[in-house]
């Protein structure tokens, strides 16, 4: 399977003042969102007519369809965002200075903590309409997808091969033509891969965003997520089982009809000069490629696309590179001052927002809670590594097992783990065990698969000649792990571990508190802190919790994962 550097690892930038500016801007944006949301809460909300959710399984296909539709709506906006935001960041030096650090921060913000505010915000936009709630849900899914897609596209745009760029300029393609002929195709494999990862992760947010409680009102949108929420409230275990089955079917369809064909198709755009051996063509792609009807439809769409992308739409563009041209100092100055002013205003707003109710001790509490969650995540990572690394290596070294296990691991990674929470919660309630310990594994249920499938990919990619050399010198046992296998899979393992731990932070907001009927369980941690503050309507603490969590995620990425990944890729690759 193709392996791409996760977007949170790829930046080799050191933290600089732009990160501080970006942090202020993002936080200011969140505060603004909350402010607007809060002012709407205080006004009497025109009651949205709540569609009742039926627990009859016959309704499930319809609900599944609605959930999927939300997913695709979010995907559409994510693509739109990716193509514009990343292009702007890559083509304009000044815009890039701000936009990229902002994206980096946004990547680490646990948006689940803001579910209430975004819901209220969008409800305020469309008072009394279901549209508001729908958009709020789509927005949450969007925020779970867009950032890494935009990052991937941006990275492709900054690594365009020089000779193709020269050819485009020499043959005088207009910027619009170049965008569709060079930029987008070159970025395609990475973009498709990241889009599919985003979609896989997105199911989790679909489920989480369909039933949102604001104050005393719970807004439900018809979908699998709200179905589960209703089942939980009514303590209906059978309905939860139906929902899990329905979700399995949806993901299976998504995996077979979309994920695999798209990834295989995108290999066509891989920038390589020799034809490399590729795996078997997914059956869906085969059907699409070899059936006359589908071919005609494809040709029709392709022709339409081509005639649009072929338009010149010429804007004046600089086609001659002048190495000695200095950027205008004056414009730079104006730009910096403008950004500084906006950042200062954001800082002022944040202080104003926080100073009324919060004390420094609150920060201390939040950081302490964060440390608990950090401890959980780290312990979980160690356990996951101990379990999945040996299994993954065993599978990866056996091509037959790999062919079977790899798709299953990817499939499981897409399955929204929050559907599996109820049985675990039920067990905790039944056995009266400590929720501080036993709620913990929920955080990693969904994301541990990233560790597994990356380790499998790493072991499968281990060079054959090195395997032979190792066998020839009779390297076995502990030495084999220490000198051969662990260095061999290290970059892959770190890729998986980063994805898993990032997901775990986000999941903590829903995993550290759980309820079954009227029983509420809570563990000590930042996720529970945010969830409880949300339930209590204590907005400053929600903001504080989210800020502290973003800080933790950013720090762990910068201090642990990024240096580790750089070290691993440098030490374990030849040349």
């Amino acid at each position: 399977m193709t392996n791409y550097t996760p977007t949170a690892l790829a930046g080799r930038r050191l933290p600089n003042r732009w990160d501080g500016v970006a942090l202020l801007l993002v936080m200011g944006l969140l505060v603004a969102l909350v402010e607007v949301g809060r002012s709407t809460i205080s006004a009497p909300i025109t009651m949205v007519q709540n569609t009742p959710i039926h627990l009859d399984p016959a309704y499930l296909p319809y609900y599944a369809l609605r959930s999927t539709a939300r997913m695709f709506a979010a995907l559409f906006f994510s693509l739109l965002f990716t193509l514009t935001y990343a292009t702007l960041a890559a083509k304009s030096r000044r815009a890039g200075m701000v936009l990229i650090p902002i994206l980096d921060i946004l990547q680490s913000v646990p948006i689940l903590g803001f579910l209430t505010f975004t819901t209220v915000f969008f409800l305020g936009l469309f008072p009394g309409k279901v549209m508001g709630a729908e958009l709020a849900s789509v927005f949450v899914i969007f925020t779970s997808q867009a950032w890494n897609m935009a990052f991937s596209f941006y990275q492709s745009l900054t690594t365009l091969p020089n000779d193709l760029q020269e050819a485009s300029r020499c043959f005088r393609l207009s910027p619009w033509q170049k965008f569709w002929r060079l930029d987008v195709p070159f970025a395609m494999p990475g973009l498709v891969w990241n889009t599919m990862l985003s979609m896989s992760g997105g199911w989790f947010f679909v489920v989480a965003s369909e039933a949102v409680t604001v104050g005393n009102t719970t807004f439900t949108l018809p979908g699998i997520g709200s179905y589960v929420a209703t089942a939980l409230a009514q303590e209906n275990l059978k309905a939860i089982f139906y929902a899990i089955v329905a979700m399995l079917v949806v993901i299976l369809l998504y995996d077979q009809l979309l994920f695999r064909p798209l990834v295989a198709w995108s290999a066509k755009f891989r920038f390589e000069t020799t034809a490399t051996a590729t795996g078997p063509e997914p059956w869906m792609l085969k059907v699409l490629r070899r059936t006359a009807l589908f071919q005609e439809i494809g040709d029709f769409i392709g022709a339409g696309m081509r005639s649009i992308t072929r338009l010149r739409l010429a804007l004046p563009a600089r086609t001659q590179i002048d190495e000695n041209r200095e950027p205008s100092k004056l414009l730079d100055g104006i730009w910096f001052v403008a950004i500084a002013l906006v950042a200062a205003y954001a800082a002022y707003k944040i202080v104003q927002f926080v100073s009324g109710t919060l004390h420094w001790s609150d920060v201390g509490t939040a950081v302490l809670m964060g440390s608990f969650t950090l401890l959980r995540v780290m312990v979980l990572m160690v356990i996951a590594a101990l379990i999945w690394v040996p299994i993954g290596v065993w599978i990866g070294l056996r091509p037959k097992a790999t062919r079977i296990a790899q798709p299953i691991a990817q499939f499981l990674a897409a399955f929204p783990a929050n559907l599996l929470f109820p049985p675990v919660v039920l067990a905790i309630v039944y056995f009266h065990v400590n929720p501080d310990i036993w709620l913990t594994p929920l955080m990693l249920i969904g994301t541990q698969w990233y560790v597994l499938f990356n380790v499998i990919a790493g072991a499968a990619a281990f060079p054959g000649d090195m395997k032979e050399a190792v066998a020839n010198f009779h390297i076995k046992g502990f030495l084999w792990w220490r000198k051969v296998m662990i260095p061999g899979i290290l970059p892959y393992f770190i890729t998986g571990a980063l994805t898993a731990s990032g997901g775990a932070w986000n999941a903590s907001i829903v995993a550290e508190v759980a309820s079954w009927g009227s029983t509420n369980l809570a563990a000590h941690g930042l996720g529970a802190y945010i969830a409880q503050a949300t339930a209590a309507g204590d907005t400053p603490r929600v903001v504080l919790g989210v800020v502290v969590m973003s800080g933790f995620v950013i720090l762990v990425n910068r201090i642990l994962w990024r240096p580790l990944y750089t070290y691993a890729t440098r030490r374990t690759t030849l040349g």
Partner: protein
Amino acid sequence: MDQNITQPLVTVRNCRQAYHKEASADLVVLDDVDLTLHEGEIVALLGRSGSGKSTLLRIVSGLLKPTAGEVKWRGKDLKGPAEGVAMVFQSFALFPWLTVQENVELGLEALGVKKDDRDERSEEAIDLIGLGGHDTAYPKELSGGMRQRVGLARALVVHPDLLLMDEPFSALDVLTAETLRTDLIDLWMDKKLPVKSILIVTHNIEEAVLMADRILVFSSNPGRVAHELQVPFPHPRNRYDPAFRQMVDDIYGIMTRRPPKEVQAVPTVPSGFATPLHHVGTNLMSGLMETLNSAPYNGRADLPALAAALQYEVDELLPLGETLSLLGFAVLEEGDLILTETGKRFAEGETEDRKEIFAAQVKAHVPLINAIRAVIDQRSNHRASAVRFRDELEDHMSPEYAEETLRTVISWGRYAEIFEYDEEAQQFGLEEDDEEEEA
């Protein structure tokens, strides 16, 4: 457009291309270059890598704006890629996600040519260049030679007045390159090419003499036109013709001649400290010295003959010869490479003798190595950061040359066992035993 026969296609006057460096002097890539191109001629820009010939090609194409000087296309100032100029790239620069036909049509699309016209013209170019039947193939399915044919067809389909070729055959094997060259010249002689003039950049002397009507030989550091030669032979040319061989030999002589001293203008800290070094491995040097020392060369080889025997191109052989002469193992004289007494001893020595001889030569001729060793010895912990040496080198040469020079010094220093290098820490150090001795 005004079809004035006497008006040249391109004129370049006093062209200078320099990269601004913060530390000290600007890095000059091209200095005071003049070039005039007329209709009906093939001109070759011949020079070593780093002589700025490709930069000049990009300036002529309008892709790059020179730091100073005047570039005119058909009498008008050139501002950006001109209509009527098409380029063929060393790396082919084909779009891997487009079929052969789509690649060829690229330039026509940019011109907004209608579909029927596009089909007809691309078909014509594909057939002309011998690609018929490959229309729907993707570049990665084709061999290198076929790929460069696509590159040619893509350039020809827009019917350019001037065809620019940037080392078009250097990524191909010898036989394929020969076929493509011959095909191109045949089409040119039969007046089937829809172009008026060709400007080709190459480092291959024979290629230049085979194809061009006029050759501009570049000198390096900074790039200048050192010589201009007319090639008097009619096509098709015979590379075994004595007059042809003589011309190739003469150009070898020109290219191995010591550059005039005034080039190394700014004298720098410890003298010779900042000589750019080519990364030539010690194995390669040993191999070449052994070859030179044995029959049939017996210590003296004619460069063109040696290049042919070893299947090297001038661009690969010259840095090798220069490195040997820098270290005092050989002497370069008018296109000949002559082994010195030291070189002879090295070639006949065993591994340990060789290391000793090599260490002595390096210490005598590469001041940078001595400087590094001196700093290591001064430090109490016997370690020295590579960063400061790289910074110092970058004051005198481009970052790429500085990197290559440093890499060369590291590999020579390791072989001669003068110091060790820790890539992780980017630090020079001493071997364990050495350190004990010192202490």
